[in-house]
């Protein structure tokens, strides 16, 4: 594996789904796929950080957004990155309606479970993106 897939969660501070996005990204990059993914802070993308821009230019990104405004996907694209996949936490919740997340500073148990399911979906997508990269 030469290039890590970049995981870019929204930094949503006003909604529970933003926290789920953030937690899911941590699970992917620290627990499920630490060798093949890398967390990229959206604030650094917004600021046009040189190293982050170079990474975005070299590796595909998976954006995880907490609301329909899709800040992560939009900002990555506007910064010259390639959004290989874009996920909305709300879509993951719709597929798992028994897991109603609550809390922003601290997620409830359902929120943690939803974050884990989100992370598993992102991991699968990261594998596919990596495979597409190798076959390209």
């Amino acid at each position, binding site marked *: 594996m030469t290039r890590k897939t970049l995981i870019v969660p929204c930094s949503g501070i006003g909604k529970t789904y933003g926290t789920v996005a953030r937690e899911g990204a941590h699970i992917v990059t620290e627990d499920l796929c630490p060798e093949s993914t890398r967390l990229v802070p959206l*604030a650094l*993308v917004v600021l046009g950080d040189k190293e982050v821009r170079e990474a975005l230019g070299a590796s595909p990104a998976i954006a995880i957004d907490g609301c329909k405004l899709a800040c992560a996907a939009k900002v990555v694209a506007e910064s010259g990155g390639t959004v290989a996949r874009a996920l909305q936490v709300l879509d993951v919740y719709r597929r798992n309606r028994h897991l109603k997340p609550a809390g922003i*500073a601290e997620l409830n148990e359902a929120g943690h479970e939803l974050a884990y399911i989100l992370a598993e979906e992102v991991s699968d997508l990261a594998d596919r993106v990596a495979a597409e990269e190798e076959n390209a």
Partner: protein
Amino acid sequence: MPELPKRKVGLVSCSGEEMAEGTVTRLATLKVLESLRPDATVTICLPLFLAGGEGDRAFARFYPTLAIDGCEKRCAARGTEIYSAKPASSIVVNELCPEAAGQLGTARRLNTAGVDAVNAVAAEIAGQVDRLLGVPWDRTRAEEGRASAATNEKPAATCSCGSGVPVRVLEIDGCEVEVLALPPILEMFRQAAKPPTDETAAEIFETVRLYNRVPGGAEASWKLALGRAYASYSAEGR
């Protein structure tokens, strides 16, 4: 008398996902928003300055802002200034809690020192909010200074996915322009029983320009559009 949105302090947190200090900024900001100063603060997600509309980019022109950053890169402060307006003040966790640098836990799990830092940063934010609300604020210059026309409260969400900045779109010189604070301003004039005249349009324009950047040479077009908007608005209330 109708009310313009209350003067609150906008909190912009870096939320840096990569480091514990970023988590400290996020949790401290949430503590202020939810517990310490819920009626005096609003927030916006930093990336919305780029991804959002004019209402989002005008956030720091509308509210005096306090940037809360985890590290010396100061993404929140710099991003706010670049994409909206210069923050009134800023806090950097590493500077406020230098003795705890690198010992706050992880971005995912803060330790006891991290929780202490959250409380310290939250207290600092609350103190700065009080200070900012105790001084006059000039929205047109986004600096502390002379008093503004802002007054009392209109509902404002704590998150800027509805930042509370009311906006109405007008067609000015053939372009659609989002005019900040126009809805409560029109209501203010209507409740004052102002007639829809050129003189009233000029008065509305002077109020509107406190919250909006009017391009040089476009004053007449803005007055005309505002006059039309007010005539229509006042007719609706009859």
